[in-house]
């Protein structure tokens, strides 16, 4: 793949005016020995160039699986995308050939993983793993690719990049390793960057630095950023919009400000209340009661009903659609008005 041709593709597609990346009614299931786990059950979200979408939900809610579906890296078997569409600049990725998808992976849509230590190959130098992007996708020579790798390491502010390019992943600190993952993901200037819990494995101070770096890279390059997290605190400053996931569905979508100010779904409300707050010191945290759902047997109706303080008959029998709460704002709760009003 040569650079001019990539530019040509980009120009050809730039005529499209819809969202940069749009996930529509995505379903993913894992067919395991114990049964079929419905990990993603009709997720829809979209992200535009320069926009940051935070995907929030407790662990097991299907955040990573939906991201892997976008990348096309789901373990298959056991995992299968059974329904839905993933439109990148208007064309459905799920209908592309393997080779076409491979060309998009890493180059146009890139991903950062949670645990950089295990996500980097332990037996190759970080320089090799960075340079690989340029050698494979752009056909650069070893020397040229290595120079680009060093530039990248400078760009994500790894000190002494020229020397450290020859080091192995285990020789870096956790924060530095995550910077290398980020460098690898932005190597070819992707249009969309998916960051799957990029700071979960890191110390608090390092977390802030990494989030800052991501935000800065995004501003410079106008890429769409999907930021996956289970920690509301992490995304408050950087996200434009938040999509809250529960049991493989989006239960609420809102701007950061709206969600913080007035959540429209009991689950989001519960999440907000479980953040420790200085002003409520001493009083008990109102955490969400009950167990996360078993994906082999997702509860009927609204999957959240067994844990929901607003539960009524209809919640058990009827699955709520994503109601329009306000323009660009939705909640999948039969009683969203009550929740919104804080009743």
């Amino acid at each position: 793949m040569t650079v001019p041709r990539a530019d040509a593709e980009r120009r050809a597609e730039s005529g499209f005016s819809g969202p940069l990346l749009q996930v529509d009614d995505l379903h993913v299931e894992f067919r395991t020995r114990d049964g079929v786990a419905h990990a993603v059950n009709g997720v829809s979200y979209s992200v535009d160039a320069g926009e940051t979408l935070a995907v929030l939900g407790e662990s097991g809610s299907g955040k990573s699986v939906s991201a892997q579906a976008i990348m096309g890296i789901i373990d298959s078997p056991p995992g299968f995308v059974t329904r839905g569409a993933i439109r990148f600049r208007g064309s459905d990725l799920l209908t592309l050939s393997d080779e076409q998808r491979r060309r998009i992976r890493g180059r146009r849509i890139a991903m950062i993983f949670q645990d950089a230590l295990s996500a980097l190959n332990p037996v190759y130098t970080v320089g090799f793993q960075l340079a690989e992007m340029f050698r494979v996708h752009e056909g650069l020579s070893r020397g040229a690719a290595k120079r680009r790798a060093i530039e990248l390491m400078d760009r994500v502010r790894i000190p002494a990049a020229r020397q450290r390019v020859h080091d192995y992943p285990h020789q870096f600190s956790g924060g530095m390793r995550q910077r290398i993952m980020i460098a690898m993901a932005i190597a070819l200037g992707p249009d969309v960057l998916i960051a799957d819990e990029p700071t979960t494995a890191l110390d608090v101070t390092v977390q802030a630095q990494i989030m800052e770096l991501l935000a800065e890279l995004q501003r410079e390059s106008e890429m769409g950023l999907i930021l996956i997290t289970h920690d509301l605190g992490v995304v408050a400053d950087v996200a434009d919009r938040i999509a809250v996931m529960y049991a493989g569905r989006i239960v609420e979508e809102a701007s950061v400000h709206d969600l913080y100010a007035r959540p429209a779904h009991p689950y989001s409300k519960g999440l907000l209340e479980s953040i420790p707050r200085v002003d409520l010191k001493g009083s008990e945290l109102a955490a969400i009661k009950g167990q996360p759902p078993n994906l082999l047997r997702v509860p009927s109706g609204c999957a959240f009903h067994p844990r929901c303080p607003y539960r009524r008959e209809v919640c058990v029998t009827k699955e709520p659609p994503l109601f329009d709460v306000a323009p660009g704002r939705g909640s999948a709760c039969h009683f969203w008005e009550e929740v919104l009003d804080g009743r």
Partner: protein
Amino acid sequence: MGRYTVRRLLQLIPVVLGTTFIIHFLVWQLPGDPFAGRCGDRPCAPAFVAMMTEKYQLDEPWIFQYLTFLKNLLVGDFGESFNGVPVAQILADTWPVTIRLALVGIAFEIIIGIGAGVLTGMRRGGFLDNLSLVTTLFFLAIPVFVIGFTLQYLLGVQFPIIRPTVTPEARWDELIVPGFVLASLQMAIVVRLARSTIVENLRSDYVRTATAKGLPRMRVVGVHLLRNSLIPVVTFLGTDLGNLMGGAVVTEGIFNINGVGGQLFRAIHLHDSTIIVPMVTVLVLVYLSVNLLVDLLYAVLDPRIRYD
């Protein structure tokens, strides 16, 4: 890397001392006449007993005896068979054949063992995978000498496409079937080991990263998956060389190959332990040295070890 090498070398020293001491102790220090039944079917000649007593200082306290034993080993003096041929001479004459046989065997382990292991690991649960699970189970269970006899009988006697025994020159083509027999057990283990590491690493995060980078499948497998998965296999091949040498005694005995193992096989039948003990000791030392080399190779392949 330097520190690691030195540490490995230092760790090898007590093992070499201990292992040679165990051999020495079992041969010379156990109660009973050390010369009983040692010289074939007849009692040992008094001259031979006198020579051995002198050479191994058998009248001295055991620590002197052991040091003499070590000194003789170090200077390459492995003693003589009871009819007067120096063991060093026998070893020099027979090594090339055994090395050739071992190379054929290792080639089988690498080509068939790793090949089948990788193939079945990549397509878990398929027909080939199940076939190989059953086949390797048989190779794991059937003793090498039974496999040897079976192939010798089938290919040498029943449907004669090879000579049942190997000529003294031991040409490469004659060593194919014995090499297969020698490697049969290890091949099965390598298939299973390679398969399980491939299966494990296929699910690993770094392979997922390599895919997410948009690398072609061939490169994900060839560069990222194989390199990591083969590290334990290479280690196994090295550490199992001791069993391969034991197998060489059996294989060379069956196919009448004139290598170190064949010599040992004959010496056992002639009850000539004067040559059994030094030959086995040398084999054990070779085995321990190869193990050291494999450890160093391991460090070359896996940087996490090297920088400890």
